[in-house]
């Protein structure tokens, strides 16, 4: 295509947008709202997923040492475990701390059990966290090897918390994908419908252009540019809305001081988010025009 023609087609798209005020506004607001819903829901789902996968448990494996293990042996064991592959943290819960906690609990519960007990009968305890949930079980098996770890009495796996967490994150992840995809398709459909109506309103013009000898490409190009522009601008506005709402939401949740509020870890990179939204919007917009216009171009 010659440069003059190309310049003309761009100019054409620009004039179309300007001279069809009502339609342009309708298309842009529809794209904005739809993309805001799509982006908002996907953003939230991803956030919830992020939070859910970092939520679990103060411990994952509890290692009770023998009561006669010395502090030195305990510390040596802690070091050994810390050095093992896949381990995130190993924290020591000393028998003294355990005893103090129990006495406190006892007092609160008014059971007065500890009063009659001479000395401290409790063992030291090591709380282990692993890097990946699936490593927890193998780790336990290793630790239960009493030949290798003679001072270990019992190894307790936090099965319940673990399962719950794994199930929940799996659930959220799966649902998120289903809902996200559904919303994507739904948005594409709604935007496509709107664009189809704007093309429909111009069917006579398209027909005239054909009769004057314009090729399909010549007619299509400015309209696709237009759809591209709608998608672009709409997504940009939508990203703004979503990021603003997310900010407000974070503040709101933080103000609540619920356990969730302490756990809002990583942020989604806003740049990546805006970019993603724009790409999706532009694709839906321009492809929407492409699909809509076909039926009108078919009749040459």
């Amino acid at each position, binding site marked *: 295509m010659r440069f003059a023609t190309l310049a*003309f087609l761009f100019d054409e798209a620009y004039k179309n947008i300007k001279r069809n005020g009502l339609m342009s506004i309708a298309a842009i607001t529809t794209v904005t709202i739809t993309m805001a819903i799509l982006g908002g829901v996907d953003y939230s789902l991803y956030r919830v997923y992020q939070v859910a996968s970092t939520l679990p448990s103060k411990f994952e494996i509890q290692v009770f040492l023998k009561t006669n293990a010395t502090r030195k042996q305990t510390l040596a064991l802690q070091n050994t475990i810390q050095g093992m592959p896949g381990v995130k943290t190993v924290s020591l819960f000393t028998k003294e701390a355990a005893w103090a906690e129990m006495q406190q609990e006892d007092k609160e519960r008014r059971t007065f059990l500890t009063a009659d007990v001479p000395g401290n009968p409790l063992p030291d305890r090591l709380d282990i966290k692993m890097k990946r949930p699936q490593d927890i079980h193998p780790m336990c098996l290793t630790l239960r090897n009493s030949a290798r770890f003679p001072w270990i009495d019992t190894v307790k796996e936090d099965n319940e918390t673990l399962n719950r967490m794994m199930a929940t994150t799996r659930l959220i992840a799966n649902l998120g994908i289903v809902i996200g995809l559904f919303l994507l398709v739904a948005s594409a459909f709604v935007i496509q419908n709107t664009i189809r109506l704007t093309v429909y309103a111009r069917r006579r013009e398209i027909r005239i252009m054909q009769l*004057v000898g314009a090729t399909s490409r010549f007619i299509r190009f400015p309209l696709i540019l237009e759809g591209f522009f709608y998608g672009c601008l709409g997504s940009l506005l939508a990203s703004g809305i979503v990021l603003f709402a997310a900010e407000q939401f974070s503040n709101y949740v933080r103000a609540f001081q619920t356990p969730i509020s302490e756990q809002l870890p990583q942020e989604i990179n806003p740049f990546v988010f805006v970019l993603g939204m724009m790409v999706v919007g532009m694709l839906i917009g321009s492809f929407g025009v492409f699909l809509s216009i076909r039926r009108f171009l078919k009749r040459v």
Partner: protein
Amino acid sequence: MIEPHWIRIFRIVKQLADRRLLNLRMIDLKDLSVVYSENRSALSHVTLHVEKGEFVFLVGPTGAGKSTMLKVLYREECDIQGMVKVMGFDIPSMHPRDVPKLRRSMGVVFQDFGLLPNKTVFENVAFALRVIGAGRREIRSKTPEALDMVGMTHRCDAFPNQLSWGEQQRVAIARALVNRPSLFIADEPTGNLDPDTSMGIASILEDINSTGTTVIVATHDKHIVDALRKRVVAFNHGCIVRDDPNGRYDIEEKPQVS
């Protein structure tokens, strides 16, 4: 788009050969019928030949099939039976991709004008040049020329809905003329013009015909038909009832009502 380049070139060369070298007729219709439904046919078994450079009036009462005839020529109506060749293009078997090429080499004045409502008069006329890929300079020189020919230069920034009916008709004529087509087709180009302006348009048509352009005009305008004394093809009920090389609007000389 996916066919190799050389096939495309071959095809174009062949078309040129068909049209230029073999010196084919401009229009070649044989046994053309257009049937809308079982009992309604707009054209039935029409045979018509038009040589290059001819000037033909199509006349006939309303509903006779004149517009349908013209629509066949620029392939708006393509659900047809029979043989139709226009400038070497075989209309019924034509590939959709070639249709723009056909239409670009003719200029058409539609009965409903077919101006683009969102474009100014200038842009409307220039559009016919854009379509053939004309450059900026060409558009800037040819468009005002065409508008001047029909006397519409002063309204070149108006939109079609700001024009009177006759002004729209003249803009449509300018658009059809602007890219100097080798076939000019007009459906009722003077239907909404006063007698003086009509005669002006008629003489423009005569001028472009004298430069070698083939002109086909469907009209009810007795005056210009009788004034120009060109070939007249009369339709009635979808059939050609008269084909007169130097005809008038009516067969017998009715006394003028006055």
